[in-house]
């Protein structure tokens, strides 16, 4: 056992030395997530500037007006005040506005009882914009509510959001958790595939093989450092999504991190398997892009909701681990800690992790043929 610890230390130390000397892997782990999250994040979030908004004040009390005042002078909304819902509806149908915020006549009276509702109708054609808009309205209203004196305890405003044209789909259309899933997938798979393939390609493994080192140790020594690098990338993503895009995490952050680590193991395992099969950096890079990027974007429910895809695609999407992690992330980011769902999906992820890491261990043999 002593030998094991000493050899692991030596290999991991070597790995970190290489990381510090050759910045390309570190760049892949840190710059790639930042670049992706900025490019994709801003590419979409820019859309929620100056959203034409119809505000229907059926309750014109100062309180009601104040509750929706966040639309005034906001960079996100350009409001049009109308007096009836019918009028607003017409604007939406004509696509002059993209969203209707309707304050019902009984808003003020119900607010005291904590049962007030706001109706929000969104143009579901551009679902991504619609979801972002809704998210913003939700947080604006709840922060207004928090500012109300004495309203800190039971008071709440229910948001009755409806999406026109796209009602069924809309509820799963959330984009940021998906982006994090894609980033974790890409850096996890690509990073390990490349660094492991490099050892095969440069012949360094052939020399290492004829030492007391065991294959398990070689694989572990690759997992540990690149797990850390990839985790660094994840933290950067979370940090950016929290402070740059102001995405709240509704559920437990600890559970989120725990599941992410499990998922990282899957990604690292896939990367290791790819490198062991290809044994060349170029092929490893190509195949990991093919295995990570495309399916995680297209077959995970990130862009196309799996339920609305053909049965075959659904099956493939469910067999691949990506969609399961995405489900967990969405649930954690947006609806809170849903124990039942997380246990089921998390368990599945753990199985995937065991499978791929196990495959990496069995496939790495001290042989050169």
């Amino acid at each position, binding site marked *: 056992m002593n030998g094991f610890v000493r*050899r692991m230390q030596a290999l991991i130390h*070597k790995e970190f030395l290489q990381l510090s*000397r050759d910045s390309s892997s570190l760049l892949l782990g840190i710059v790639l997530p930042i670049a992706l999250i900025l490019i994709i994040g801003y590419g979409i979030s820019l859309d929620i500037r100056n959203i034409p908004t119809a505000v229907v004040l059926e309750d014109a009390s100062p309180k009601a007006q104040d509750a929706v005042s966040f639309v005034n002078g906001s960079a996100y909304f350009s409001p049009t005040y109308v007096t009836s819902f019918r009028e607003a509806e017409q604007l939406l149908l004509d696509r002059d506005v993209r969203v209707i915020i309707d304050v019902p006549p009984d808003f003020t009276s119900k607010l005291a009882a904590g049962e007030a509702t706001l109706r929000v109708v969104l143009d579901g054609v551009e679902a991504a914009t619609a979801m972002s808009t809704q998210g913003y309205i939700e947080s604006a209203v709840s922060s207004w509510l928090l500012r109300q004196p004495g309203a800190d305890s039971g008071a709440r405003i229910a948001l009755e959001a409806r999406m026109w044209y796209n009602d069924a789909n809309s509820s799963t259309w959330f984009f940021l958790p998906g982006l994090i899933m894609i980033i974790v997938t890409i850096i996890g798979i690509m990073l390990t595939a490349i660094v492991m393939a490099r050892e095969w390609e440069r012949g360094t493994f052939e020399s290492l*093989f004829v030492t007391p080192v065991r294959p398990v140790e070689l694989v572990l020594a690759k997992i540990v450092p690149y797990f850390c690098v990839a985790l660094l990338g994840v933290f950067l993503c979370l940090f950016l999504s929290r402070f740059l895009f102001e995405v709240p995490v509704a559920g437990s952050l600890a559970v989120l991190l725990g599941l992410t680590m499990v998922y990282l193991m899957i990604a690292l395992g896939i990367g290791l398997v790819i490198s062991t099969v290809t044994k060349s950096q170029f092929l490893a890079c190509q195949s990991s892009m093919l295995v990570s990027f495309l399916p995680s974007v297209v077959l995970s429910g990130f862009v196309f909701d799996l339920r609305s895809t053909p049965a075959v695609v659904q099956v493939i999407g469910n067999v691949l681990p990506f969609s399961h992690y995405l489900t967990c992330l969405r649930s954690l980011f947006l609806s809170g800690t849903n124990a039942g769902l997380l246990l089921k999906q998390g368990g599945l992820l753990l199985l995937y992790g065991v499978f791929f890491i196990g495959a990496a261990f069995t496939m790495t043999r001290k042989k050169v043929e």
Partner: protein
Amino acid sequence: MEEYIIRAEQLNKVFPLKKGRTVEALKSLDLTVKQGGLTAVIGPDGAGKTTFMRLVAGLMRPTGGRLTVLGLDSVQGAEEIQARISYMPQKFGLYEDLTVQENMDLYADLHGVPEKVRPARYGKLLTMMGLERFTGRLAGKLSGGMKQKLGLACTLVRSPELLLLDEPTVGVDPLSRRELWEILQEFVRDENLTVLVNTAYMNEAALCGQVYVLHKGALLAHGTPDDLRAIAAGRCYRCTPPPGEPTRILQAHLIDDRDHVVDAVPKGGDVHFILQEGVPAAPYLEARGIAARPVASDLEDGFMVLLHRAETEVLPAAGAGEDALDKGGRPTDKVNITVRDLVKKFGDFTAVAHTSFEVHEGEVFGLLGPNGAGKTTTFKMLCGLLPATSGFLSVAGVDLHVARTQARANIGYVAQKFSLYGNLSVRDNLEFFAGIYGLPPKRRRERIAQVVREFFLEDRLDMRAGDLPGGYKQRLSMACALLHEPKILFLDEPTSGIDPLTRRNFWRQITSLAANGTTIIITTHFMEEAEYCDRFLIQDNGHMLAMGAPSEIRRQLGREGADMDDIFMAIVEQARTKGEEPK
């Protein structure tokens, strides 16, 4: 206790190829290695040397037969074998972005070398390898020779029960090679190491106790170096060419006479040749009245006799015919290539420093040096493939800075790697190259017919170029490069990775081409090939060490008859005593 450290019995290894075909890398090999001392495995490329070593290291599974290492079965006991032996693959896997010290630490940690013994062991290794000043240097920044020494140091961080070395000195300069072997012999003496070494250098094999000769996977012979020398004993002679006649011309005449001569090579200004069994003298020499003096046979002579015996299909000696040889093949006074003060820098790294030379028409000019000497860089600049940092270059009377395309019309280029279209037939490749050189249809037909005849490609015309045997591939490459009848032919490392028989054949072609007036520029890391050249340039670390005719340089150094490795070492040592140590 097993008597043998390695014991192979009827060992077989078969590799699957495409379409269900297979290749037998090892055929019923019997080989034993006893405790202590050096055992060499020699043989041309593709003989199965590396495969055997990987089997011993437990990195491959045998297809048949039995292999025990340290008394353990090489398959079941692989992990234990790997823990107890050390192995230096052909390309030792140094981590280029780790320093010398870090590389050694890694291997010491993996082998579990206790901290207490490390300072003494490291001290001994670093001093012997001459690396003590470079412990903080990145392995990637070491010269080729130093990398190999570091590789050896890593395998010797502790005294292994068996040391496997796979061609540890290939492409390394002769001085570093000698040093490496001295180190190795010292360890064998001090620690009673058991070493199995693959090598292509006969003078290295001569230092080993036992030598096994492999050829195409089969064992040709084994014994002590003396046993193998004895195979050619009494049949080896040397003769000196008449003054003014290039050595290669006499060598070509002798090697063409297959009925009487097994092998002939230029050596130390003479031609060294082996007569066929039962042949009293070479008729060609008798006819010309050139005296041949008998000499002691060396290991290479024995090896060549064995190879000739084993090789059933011998390539026809290609060339432009006897008449060309009889023209004498002396270079003219016309200067074909002028290089003045040529410099090439990559960033702050100087690959070629202030190099000047001239090459004459019909001359065979060699660029020699170990890997990383700057040969290929110089070469690429001459061909106009790489712009020079500074200096003057003129090829076939054309200034390369001004008219690169025009210069290219006069040159033929054969790259180090086979760079023809493998899935086109021989004929298609020739047609294609004739096309890109812009030959008119009639001339195209004529030239193709001519090169096909000269290079004996008739019966292979419809074969896919990729399926040709190695020697034929090179012939096709040369045939393609010569279609437009260039005045100058550039050959980049044409003889690396080629077996000795094919190498002889290749130089025979060069002799004919040069005799017909083609100027030949050739790079090689085999120092002894300088003997075929009219003049050569030796480079090391980008610097010109020496230039001139082989005989001239020998005279300057006062070492008449010395072989080229000795010449190289003498030159380097001379440069060092002058304080111009090439970095």
